[in-house]
């Protein structure tokens, strides 16, 4: 998102003198706040609530039949999944089907079917399976795919899944909530409360499109983590062809697919994040970053610590330019810095 303040930057040239910056600096984080305020929808009265409610109640009967339970025939352990095309292609979480070649799929009405496991990318907790049927022409209930990159903070979402395992006298429980953060490697968090058994189940936007797949939870009731479907789309053909790769990192920011720009950082006495080494031939060097540069902003977010830098950088997709503001001496520079996948940058 381009904020008006950056258009001004561009118009007045890239180099801005110290004095004129002073005011710009203090307003820039504020402008980011205002933008958040604009995009997070508020509820003004019961009529707005009823409109919202109606879109929820309309979507559920359409997408519920596609929300399946996935049972391991070996262990009896279960997770969830969602059918995303009429031919029976299922998206689920990689940790749900780990070590399986075939799984039993249970539909909300209690009926069962076999599915063959296709591929999995453990780094993104993404996996695919294909329903098997004697009838090749068989059409399955499915939910359309949406986009996770297009989600906004505060956007309303619906979570479905077979919580705590399949229950034949219960349809998959509906949970309503909002996107609360966009995380590394196309993971995202919502406040739709999840629990064991939900893993692999679908998160829907208010168009009834699958936007993410349930992956993990944190201690807080707000911390429900989902793998964005754009991560699946990126690996679609490999997943479909049966490739299995990656590993789920315990570190929230760093894994083999997180972006690397190629500099080393430290913190100054005043708490600013300073570049102490630029790696030769890396994207940072190519973008013109030098030793001693202060990292001022990444993607419109003010960088106040090593932690915020790591957090903001890892939210980006490798291969796509990251907008950064660098402070060099008294000058602010706006740069677009490319990034590489960690595994491509640090090749063994």
């Amino acid at each position, binding site marked *: 998102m381009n904020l008006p303040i950056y258009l001004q930057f561009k118009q007045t040239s890239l180099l801005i003198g110290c004095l004129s910056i002073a005011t710009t600096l203090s307003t820039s984080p504020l402008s980011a*706040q205002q933008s*958040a*305020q604009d995009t*997070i*929808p*508020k*509820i*003004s009265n*019961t009529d707005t*609530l*009823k409109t*919202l*409610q109606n879109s929820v*109640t309309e979507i*559920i009967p359409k997408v519920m039949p596609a929300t399946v339970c996935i*049972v391991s*025939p070996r262990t009896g352990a279960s997770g969830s999944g969602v059918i995303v095309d009429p031919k029976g292609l299922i998206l689920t979480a990689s940790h749900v089907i780990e070590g399986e070649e075939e799984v*039993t799929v*249970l539909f909300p009405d*209690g*009926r*069962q*079917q076999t599915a063959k496991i296709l591929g999995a990318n453990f780094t993104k907790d993404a996996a695919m399976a294909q329903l098997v049927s004697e009838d090749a022409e068989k059409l399955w209930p499915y939910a359309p795919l949406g986009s996770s990159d297009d989600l906004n*903070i*505060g956007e309303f979402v*619906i979570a479905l899944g077979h*919580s*705590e395992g*399949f229950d*034949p*006298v*219960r349809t998959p*429980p*509906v*949970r*309503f909530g*909002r996107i*609360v*953060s966009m*995380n*590394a490697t196309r993971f995202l*968090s919502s*406040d*739709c*409360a*999840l*629990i*064991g*058994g*939900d893993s692999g189940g679908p998160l829907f936007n208010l168009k009834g499109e699958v936007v993410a797949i349930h992956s993990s*939870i*944190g*201690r*807080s*009731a*707000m*911390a429900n*983590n989902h793998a964005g479907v754009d991560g699946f789309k990126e690996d679609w053909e490999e997943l479909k062809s049966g490739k299995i790769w990656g590993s789920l990192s315990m570190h929230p*920011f760093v894994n083999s697919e997180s972006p690397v720009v190629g500099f080393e950082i430290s913190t100054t006495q005043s708490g600013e994040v300073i570049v102490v080494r630029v790696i030769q031939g890396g994207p940072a060097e190519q973008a013109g970053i030098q030793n001693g540069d202060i990292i001022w902003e990444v993607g419109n977010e003010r960088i106040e610590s090593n932690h915020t830098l790591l957090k903001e950088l890892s*939210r980006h997709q490798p291969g796509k330019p990251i907008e950064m503001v660098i402070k060099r001496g008294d000058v602010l520079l706006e740069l677009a810095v490319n990034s590489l996948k960690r595994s491509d940058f640090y090749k063994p």
Partner: protein
Amino acid sequence: MIFLGLSLVGSLHAQFQPVDGLPFLREHESEQLDKQALSFYQAIQPLAESLKHTSVGIEHRGRRLALGTVTSVGVVSKWSEVMRYRDTLTYRLPTGERVRTRPIGVIEEFDLVILSAPEELKSLDISSSKGMGDAQIGEFLFVAGPGGEAHSLGVVSVAPRSLRESDKAYLGVVMDMQYAGEGVRIRGVQEGTTAAKADLRANDIVLEINGEPLKGALEMGNILQQMKAGSEVTIRYQRLQQEQEINLTLGGRPQFQDQAQGRIQKMQKMGATLSKVRSDFPNAMQSDMPLDPEDCGGPVYNLEGEFLGIAIARASRTKSYIIPADELAELLTPQETTPSIAEEVEPDAANELNEEEGLPIAKAEIEPERAQLVDPEGLVSPEKLHKLIEQKRKELMLLEQELIEQQGRLNH
């Protein structure tokens, strides 16, 4: 849904606290999310205000134990939350006047208690709201509080159902999970069950239930559990290449051990304080509302202001239970409210309490525990004794649980 808790509403502008498990949450977005959550509660506030007369706070010495729902037979609340202080319970009338109340009936299987109420309060009962609603999955709902506030917000997650295993049908066969052929192969038959009476045997292959062919063992289990105990079914099976058909009346499922494993039990408590009694209700609607245990007993409404039921339990991180309005209507018809354990107390006994809030109530006023053990004739019937023992056992269990929880808190 919609938790107020990124940083509590009361401290919107307080220092940003990182949320456990949300390392990517941005400070300014967290504030906006709080405001968004608040906007939901504000939007509902006028409706909640118009329904506040149907809700009371059940207190013991000024501390709220639960909420209560005003009905034409008395105030209905959550038995296990108020049981311990049943002789010293109070609530405030809409006039602000504090009155003492006593249990006049208990519906144990729903963990409900009916508390005495003066006529002036009973006339303000839930039927004075916009009638009973028939809840749809995904519909928004909230608990109305006595102060005109909404206590928790959520959606209907699952339609009303029985949570009791014994209500599900049971055939009594052990199925062969490894069998991959057509139908479902029986590995064994449990003695004394429907299957044994019908002479089903190991190695029989069940092909159809009520004319529907079976794809596998999980499906067969699901189809049986979806039927009610006492249902009649036709089973088509194969024995030694011969196909046969029998008609059976299914029994009820035995209570299996709590199947929640350690990992799930841990997850259930993550980010939630659970009610002490939270399972086995014969009829409950499931919601994702983040109900606090002390908000149980309160009336639940939809956005039309229609009464949907009484909030009865926070059962896990993801679910709360509500006793549906139509079930309550049946439970609360006068002949159904035979008090089981609690002493019957005339409604007028809900004396006005002229004490200051928090003043200890004289010990002498507390009913001697023994009084409840004796029947009017001075004899205790075996059934009643059994029930009383069960009751005492339950109370003890709850006390123990509370003690463990308190100790757990201290240890942290």
